[in-house]
C-alpha cells in the first residue's frame, strides 16, 4: 500500500519545523513534497540581521541543508511558487506547471513586507526586508550608494538601519509613531533607545508622513518627500512598515481567511484536509510575527498530522529583543499596563538603565527592560508560569540573582560574561562555544544546547546561565515554556505534572502501563524518564507498585556509590551522627578484610569506605549487618543524614536534646525515597552547630520547644531554609516534619529538591496544607508512616528477594 501524500507549500521556518516535529514522532508516515518559492533550503530568517550587519554569512544561517531533505526523503521543489490549489482534485500546481497531489496539505507561506501605497513604491532601489534576496540587495546597494532611508521604526526597521549604517551608509529612519518601537516599548524606553542609536550615527524623523518617492535620472529612486514638504535624498528605501500574511493563494482556493488563514486549536483550516502554520495563519484572531509561537504551532500541527490527536495550541505570550549588538532591550507581555495594573519602575537615564514591570493581581503580566536585560528570561518565565509574586515583590525589580550559583565565579548574568568565561564548570564549556553552537547549529532550546555542547548536562547548575545565553543569542525566537508544561524528556511531550496526575488518576502501577497510556515515543524510555516514572509509581502506590531495579541508577541498584574507577563506596548509617566502639570496630574490621584503600569522615557525620570492589559489596554488607549496621543510603534519592549537635545532652548552652531528637527523626524516615535526596539537622540551640539553616528540614531547639525550618540547601546554590513553624514537643517535630516531607514526596517532581519545590509552589501553599490544616497534616503524616511501615535495610531485601547475581561476575577461563 502506498503511503498518504503530504504536500507543504512554503519552505520556511514554521513549515520545516513542523516537518521536523513530524519526523520525530512518525518518520515514515507520509510521502512528503515541499514547494519553496525561494531558491534556498530552509534558513534562519532571524539571522538575516546579523548577516546584514556583517556579523555572519549566509552559509552560516542554513538550518536544513540539502542532505537533510534527502535523508528524510523529501521531494523538494525549490524556486517554485505554487500558484493554484485544486481542492476538488486535491492537487497543487506551481508556476512552472509542476503538479503534485495531496492527501493532506500544509500551508506555511509566511508573510510579505507591506509596501506603502505611495507613488514611486515600485521604483528600482525600493525594497522590503524579508529574505536573502532583499539582504543581498541591501549589501549591494551599500557598495554603490550613500543615502538610505528606512521606513518604519519597529524591530525590523531598526535592525535594517543598523546594518546599513555598519556598511557605511548614511541612514535615516522615518517613523510615523511618536517614539520608536511603540509596539514593544513605552515612551521612556523608546526615547532612551533613540538616544543610543543616535550616538551611533543613525538619524531619525519621527511623526513623519511619507508622501512619495521620487525617481532620479537613471530611473532609480533618488529622494523621499514628506507631506510637510520636506525632502531628503534616498538611493535605497527599505520598507519596514509591517507585514501582511500571505493568504492570496489560500483565499483564491476558497479557504476561509480573515487577516490570515483561519485555523482552529489543532491548526486545521476550514478544509479538514488542509493545515496551516506560521505567519500566514490567524489563530483566535491573532497572526504572530515571531518564531517562538510558530514553533509551538508546529509541534501541535505535527502531532495532529501524525494522527495522535494530542495537544491544542491555545495562543502564546510573546517576548521580543532587539538584535542590535551592544543595545540591550527586552520586552514581554502587556508592557504598557493600564486599568487594574500596577507598575514597578526603575529609571536611571544617566546609567542607561530602565526597567518597568507590570503587575496585575499579584502576577507579572508584562515588562520592559532597557540597558540591563539579563533577567529578561527569568521575568518571562514568571510571566508564563503566572506565578504569585507577592512574596518576592520587594526585590523583584533587582532580578533573580541575589546569590550566584557556585562554580562559575559567582556570575549570574550571562550578559556580563566574556566569550572565554567558563559557563559549565563540570564539562568545561565556555560561553563562546555555546553562542557559536546556537548560531551555527540553529539551536532553539536548552535541551538542544545540552546535547550539542554538553553544557548544563551534568550538575545542571548552569542551566539558568545557558537559558540566558540562548535568550540573548536568539532574541524573540527564545521560547520559555511554562515549567509545568516542559516535557519530562525526549521520550514524551508530557511534563512531570502530567505524568504524575495520569498515574494517580488512572491508577497505573507499572512503567509499561504508563508508557502505553501516555503513548511514549520510545519502547522503554531512557535514563531520564525511567527513574522518574519508577519513583512516581512507588511513591503514589507504595505497597502496590513494585520497584523496578532496572529503572534505577546504578547507585540505588547496588546500594553503594559508584566511583570514577568503577569501584564503590560504602557508608554505613550512624544514626544522628552517633556511633559506638563496637560499630567502629566492625567498620575497621570490614575495611581491613576487604582491603579498603581509603577511609574518610564525610560531611554528613559518618564514615565512608571508598574503593570497594563490586563483588565484595554483598559480603562486606553481610558483615556490617551482622554487627547491627544498616545502609546509610549515601547514594539514593532518599533520606541521607540527620546531622545533630551534642545538644542539651552535654552542651552548656543546649536547650533541647538534639541528639535524641535527631536519632528519632532518622529512624522514622529510614528508607524513605523522595524526588531528590533529603537531609535534616537538629541543633540544640540557636547557635546552630548542626547547620540546620541549610537543610531540607532544619530543627532548632529553643527554650520553649523547637523551631522548624524548611527548604534549605547547601549545595549548588546555597539556599537558606525558611521559617516554617514553632512547636513544643518531640512528637510534634516528627509530625510536622514528616507531614511536610510526605507532601514533598507527593507533589515534588523527580530531581526537584525541597528548595526548588518550595520555590515553585510557594511557602504559603505548604503552610496551608501542613501548619494550618491539622487534619490534613495528620493524613500526610499517616501516609508517610504507612509507606515506611515495612522499611528494611536494602541489603536484607536483596538477600531475601533474589539471588544477588548482579554482584557476581561470570569468569571466563582462558
Amino acid at each position, binding site marked *: 500500500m502506498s503511503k498518504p501524500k503530504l504536500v507543504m507549500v512554503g519552505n520556511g521556518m514554521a513549515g520545516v519545523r513542523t516537518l521536523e516535529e513530524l519526523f520525530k514522532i512518525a518518520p515514515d508516515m507520509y510521502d512528503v513534497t515541499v514547494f519553496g518559492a525561494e531558491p534556498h533550503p530552509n534558513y534562519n530568517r532571524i539571522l538575516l540581521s546579523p548577516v546584514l550587519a556583517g556579523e555572519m554569512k549566509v552559509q552560516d544561517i542554513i538550518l536544513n541543508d540539502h542532505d537533510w531533505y534527502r535523508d528524510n526523503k523529501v521531494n523538494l521543489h525549490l524556486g517554485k511558487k505554487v500558484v493554484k490549489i485544486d481542492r476538488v482534485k486535491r492537487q497543487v500546481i506551481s508556476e512552472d506547471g509542476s503538479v503534485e497531489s495531496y492527501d493532506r496539505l500544509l500551508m506555511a507561506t509566511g508573510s510579505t513586507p507591506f509596501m506603502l501605497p505611495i507613488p514611486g513604491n515600485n521604483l528600482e532601489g525600493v525594497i522590503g526586508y524579508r529574505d536573502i534576496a532583499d539582504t543581498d540587495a541591501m549589501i549591494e546597494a551599500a557598495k554603490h550608494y550613500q543615502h538610505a532611508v528606512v521606513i518604519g521604526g519597529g524591530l525590523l526597521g531598526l535592525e535594517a538601519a543598523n546594518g546599513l549604517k555598519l556598511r557605511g551608509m548614511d541612514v535615516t529612519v522615518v517613523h510615523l509613531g511618536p517614539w520608536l518601537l511603540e509596539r514593544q516599548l513605552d515612551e521612556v524606553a523608546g526615547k532612551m533607545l533613540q538616544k543610543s542609536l543616535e550616538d551611533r550615527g543613525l538619524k531619525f524623523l519621527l511623526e513623519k508622513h511619507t508622501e512619495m518617492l521620487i525617481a532620479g535620472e537613471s530611473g532609480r529612486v533618488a529622494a523621499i518627500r514628506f507631506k510637510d514638504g520636506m525632502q531628503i535624498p534616498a538611493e535605497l528605501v527599505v520598507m519596514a512598515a509591517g507585514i501582511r500574511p500571505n493568504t492570496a493563494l489560500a483565499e483564491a482556493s476558497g479557504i476561509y481567511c480573515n487577516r490570515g488563514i483561519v485555523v482552529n486549536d489543532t491548526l486545521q483550516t476550514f478544509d479538514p484536509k488542509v493545515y496551516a502554520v506560521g505567519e500566514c495563519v490567524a489563530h483566535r484572531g491573532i497572526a504572530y510575527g515571531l518564531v517562538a509561537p510558530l514553533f509551538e504551532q508546529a509541534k501541535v500541527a505535527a502531532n495532529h498530522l501524525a494522527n495522535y490527536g494530542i495537544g491544542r495550541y491555545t495562543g502564546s505570550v510573546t517576548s521580543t529583543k532587539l538584535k542590535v549588538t551592544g543595545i540591550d532591550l527586552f520586552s514581554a507581555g502587556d508592557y504598557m499596563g493600564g486599568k487594574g495594573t500596577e507598575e514597578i519602575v526603575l529609571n536611571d537615564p544617566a546609567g542607561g538603565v530602565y526597567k518597568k514591570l507590570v503587575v496585575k493581581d499579584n502576577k507579572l503580566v508584562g515588562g520592559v527592560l532597557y540597558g540591563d536585560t539579563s533577567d529578561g528570561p527569568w521575568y518571562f518565565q514568571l510571566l508564563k508560569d503566572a506565578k504569585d509574586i507577592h512574596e518576592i515583590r520587594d526585590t523583584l525589580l533587582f532580578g533573580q540573582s541575589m546569590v550566584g550559583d557556585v562554580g562559575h565565579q559567582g556570575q549570574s548574568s550571562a550578559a556580563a560574561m566574556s566569550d572565554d568565561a567558563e559557563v559549565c564548570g563540570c564539562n568545561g564549556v565556555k560561553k563562546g562555544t555555546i553562542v557559536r553552537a546556537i548560531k551555527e547549529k540553529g539551536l532553539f532550546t536548552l535541551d538542544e544546547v545540552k*546535547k*550539542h555542547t554538553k553544557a548544563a*548536562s*551534568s550538575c545542571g547548575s548552569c542551566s539558568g546561565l545557558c537559558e540566558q545565553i540562548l535568550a540573548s543569542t536568539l532574541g524573540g525566537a527564545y521560547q520559555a515554556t511554562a515549567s509545568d508544561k516542559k516535557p519530562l524528556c525526549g521520550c514524551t511531550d508530557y511534563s512531570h505534572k502530567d505524568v504524575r496526575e495520569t498515574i494517580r488518576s488512572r491508577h497505573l502501577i507499572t512503567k509499561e502501563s504508563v508508557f502505553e497510556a501516555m503513548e511514549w515515543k*520510545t*519502547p*522503554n*524510555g*531512557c*535514563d531520564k524518564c*525511567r*527513574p522518574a516514572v519508577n519513583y512516581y509509581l512507588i511513591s503514589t502506590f507504595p505497597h502496590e507498585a513494585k520497584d523496578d*531495579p*532496572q*529503572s*534505577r*541508577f*546504578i547507585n540505588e*541498584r*547496588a546500594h553503594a556509590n*559508584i566511583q*570514577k574507577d*568503577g569501584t564503590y563506596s560504602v557508608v554505613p548509617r550512624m544514626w544522628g551522627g552517633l556511633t559506638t566502639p563496637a560499630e567502629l570496630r566492625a567498620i575497621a574490621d570490614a575495611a581491613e578484610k576487604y582491603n579498603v584503600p581509603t577511609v574518610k569522615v564525610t560531611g554528613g557525620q559518618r564514615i565512608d569506605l571508598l574503593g570497594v570492589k563490586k563483588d565484595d559489596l554483598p559480603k562486606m554488607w553481610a558483615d556490617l549487618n551482622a554487627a547491627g549496621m544498616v545502609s546509610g543510603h549515601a547514594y539514593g534519592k532518599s533520606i541521607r543524614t540527620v546531622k545533630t549537635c551534642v545538644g542539651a545532652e552535654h552542651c552548656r548552652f543546649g536547650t533541647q536534646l538534639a541528639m535524641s531528637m535527631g536519632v528519632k527523626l532518622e529512624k522514622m524516615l529510614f528508607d524513605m525515597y523522595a524526588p531528590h535526596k533529603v537531609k535534616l539537622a537538629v541543633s540544640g540551640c540557636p547557635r546552630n552547630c548542626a547547620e540546620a539553616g541549610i537543610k531540607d528540614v532544619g530543627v532548632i531547639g529553643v527554650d520553649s520547644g523547637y523551631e522548624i525550618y524548611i527548604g534549605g540547601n547547601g549545595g549548588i546554590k546555597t539556599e537558606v531554609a525558611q521559617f516554617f513553624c514553632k512547636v513544643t514537643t518531640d512528637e510534634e517535630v516528627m509530625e510536622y516534619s514528616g507531614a511536610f516531607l510526605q507532601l514533598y514526596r507527593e507533589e515534588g517532581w523527580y530531581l526537584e529538591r525541597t528548595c526548588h519545590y518550595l520555590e515553585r509552589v510557594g511557602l504559603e501553599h505548604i503552610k496551608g496544607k501542613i501548619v494550618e490544616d491539622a487534619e490534613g497534616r495528620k493524613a500526610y503524616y499517616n501516609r508517610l508512616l504507612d509507606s515506611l511501615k515495612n522499611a528494611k535495610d536494602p541489603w536484607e531485601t536483596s538477600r531475601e528477594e533474589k539471588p544477588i*547475581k*548482579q554482584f557476581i*561476575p*561470570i*569468569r*571466563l*577461563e*582462558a
Partner: protein
Amino acid sequence: MSNWKLICPLEDIPQLGSRVVQQAAGGDIAIFRTSEDDVFALHDKCPHKGGPLSQGIVHGKRVTCPLHGWNIQLESGEAVAPDVGHCGKFEVKVEGGKVYLAV
C-alpha cells in the same frame, strides 16, 4: 573461526539489565539484554573515560554510561551523537535459552 563459549542461561541476565564477564586477559565484557530479549556484548569500558557500561541503564537498544551519561548503541558500540567514540563489540547468540559468547 569463532569459538563459542557458554556464558549463562538467558534468565540470569535481567531484562533491561546486564552481566559482567571477566576474561583472564583483555578486560571485562558487558552482556546486555533488552526488553525484547535481544542480547549484545560490548567491552565494559566507556569510550569517554572508561566507565563500566554494564552498570548503566539499558533502554531500547542503548545503554547510558553511569559516570557521565554518554549513550552507547548496543548493536554497533558507537556513541550516540553528539558524542563521538567507539566501544569494541563481541558476537553473542542465544540458543536453547542459553547465552553464548564468541571469544
